[in-house]
């Protein structure tokens, strides 16, 4: 994250250096995350006393013979030391890997996230396949929650103590206190299964196939997810606006004879939105990495659902893939936000 500091205007070279440094940092972070994830799935079971065979036995059919289990353990490399297994994974990421499918060998180009232990399918195409779902969910919800949250927050701040303020802040507090798996379920029961206005859970159409259907299918998840976030953003915006509107420069703007609307929008909101931008970057980054609870509740075939399935199946290559992708999105989102931050707030120097 950029350190807000007073200093000179940002120069292109500085920006480039900054980006390079951030990308290097991001790589370091991803490597740490991958090591920890790897450790969780290999070291923790070993603490619990699992042998390579016991681990391989998850990935065979029922009534498999010990020989089968042993062969699979060999094939998946469970007999090697953890370090070697991890090294193989990293090598796959950077140099690609080879996949022996019996009748031949397939080249899995870098970045190779490996092949599912369960289905034998390469992980990367599966991840790519699921991204549009999570993206659609996150973007649609984000548009709604930012618009709704910020406008409600601004109005509440300006009409502090009014009926609108009390009502919307009460609703917002309720909103942040409701778990999405509860609101999601209730919304499905009422609007999909009860009134039949919205499609049942699991409905997903690609945007390219039918944009209207796409939006219709995602409407309920969008609104539910947006409600949760909008509540938080409304509270934040309100707090931020109250704070900003008490700033000296707002008084200055008024003393200049500026119209109140301009004071609010141009001077107040602009400053109040900057912390929200940071939060939005993190929230959005986390969300595109997999909206686990929302996707579970609405059974949307996105990255979050993929993550849960992978974890339940203990399908390590898939887990690694989805965790790294999710972390990657967060890193990219926070990088973009930090760059934007520097654009929005001239006091921020990228360093």
């Amino acid at each position: 994250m950029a350190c807000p500091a007073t200093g000179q205007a940002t120069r292109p070279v500085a920006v480039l250096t900054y980006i390079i440094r951030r990308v290097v940092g991001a790589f370091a972070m991803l490597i740490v995350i991958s090591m920890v994830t790897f450790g969780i799935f290999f070291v923790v079971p070993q603490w619990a006393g699992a042998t390579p065979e016991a681990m391989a036995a998850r990935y065979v059919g029922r009534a498999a013979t010990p020989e089968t289990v042993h062969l699979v353990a060999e094939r998946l490399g469970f007999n090697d030391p953890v370090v070697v297994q991890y090294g193989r994974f990293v090598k796959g990421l950077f140099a690609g890997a080879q996949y022996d499918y019996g009748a031949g060998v397939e080249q899995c180009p870098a970045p190779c996230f490996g092949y599912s232990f369960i289905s034998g399918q390469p992980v990367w195409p599966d991840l790519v396949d699921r991204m549009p779902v999570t993206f659609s969910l996150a973007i649609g919800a984000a548009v709604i929650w930012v618009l709704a949250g910020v406008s409600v927050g601004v109005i509440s701040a300006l009409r502090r103590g009014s009926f609108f303020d009390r009502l919307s802040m009460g609703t917002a507090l309720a909103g942040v206190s409701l778990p999405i798996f509860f609101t999601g379920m209730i919304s499905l029961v009422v609007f999909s299964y009860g009134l039949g206005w919205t499609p049942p859970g699991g409905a997903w159409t690609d945007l390219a196939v039918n944009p209207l259907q796409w939006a219709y299918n995602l409407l309920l998840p969008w609104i539910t997810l947006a409600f949760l976030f909008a509540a938080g953003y409304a509270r934040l915006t309100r707090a931020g606006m109250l704070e900003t509107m008490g700033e000296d420069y707002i008084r200055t703007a008024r003393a200049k004879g500026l119209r109140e609307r301009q004071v609010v929008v141009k001077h107040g909101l602009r400053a109040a939105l900057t912390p929200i931008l940071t939060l939005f970057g993190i929230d959005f980054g986390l969300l595109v990495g997999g909206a686990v609870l929302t996707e579970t509740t609405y059974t949307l075939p996105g990255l979050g659902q993929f993550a849960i399935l992978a974890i339940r199946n203990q399908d390590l290559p898939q887990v690694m893939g989805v965790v790294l992708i999710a972390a990657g999105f967060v890193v990219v989102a926070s990088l973009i936000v930090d760059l934007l931050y520097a654009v929005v707030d001239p006091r921020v120097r990228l360093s």
Partner: protein
Amino acid sequence: MTAPLDVSGSASEAHPESVLAGAGKAIQGRSLTRIAWMRLRRDKVALTGGAVVVLLILVSIFSSPIISAFGHPPLEFHQDAIDPNTLLPKGAFGGVGSEYLLGVEPINGRDIFSRIVAGAWVSLLIGFLATLVSVVIGTTLGVIAGYFGGWVDQVIGRLMDVFLAFPLLVFAIALAGVIPDHGFGLEGNGLRIAMLIFIIGFFSWPSIGRIVRGQTLSLREREFVDAARSLGARNGYILFREVLPNLMAPILVYATLLIPTNILFEAALSFLGVGINPPTPTWGGMLSEAVRFYTLPHFVLFPGLAIFITVLAFNLFGDGLRDAFDPRAH
């Protein structure tokens, strides 16, 4: 305030500055706590939240007598309350009535009221203790970062950034999914509860850490710290005698606001099936079963409301507390 929990215990809202103003007052006069208390006493909404919190704590402590007075043991099956042909509860709205206050579960007819009362214990225990873990980690690292500054601050600050920008829920699920069955001298749900407390606490410390760091940073520059330092006080003494006492108010406020986040976190993990093992009733676990029976409104509604009311109460109380300690809110 509680962060929206979808992807993770995402970045919490933080107003270090506003509470800082409160902390500053603490130094000038000892009456801050009294002023805050006076303000809190006038805040009916916060008081209601506080009362509900106290009630919930009492309920979870006295769950056994409450259950024996108003319900049936939470694990007991009641086939008589189930229609054998449909396996659904007999009677309207899931069998809600004087026998079963909130109706019964389908298939085996367990008393939902009792299960909710019994589930309060797990929710609150994990909510409180996980918060304690976060507060301990967050305060320690926050104070160290803020007080010593320099590279220490850099390292810890980077660590907080990493934690805040982390697919935490996915990670916590992965971790909770591979909790072994025994270890650290604990077994089964005892170990699971301990591990969940640790996992949740471990993943939500940065929000507190950031606030404490900010506070410490500014306290470090205050005259009374300078004074202590000029008198030759050691770092340890300054930290524990001068800095920490002045951090109590903001820590208290943010801990109160972190509890509901952690309660939601536990509910989410239980909902996803990596929380507390059944048959121990938990609210999240009840909801995950209710998903399959969405045709039964009572089955979804009551555990959901239990979570909602608890989290709301904590949030109301925490908000009130913050406002009380934050002079600028008035």
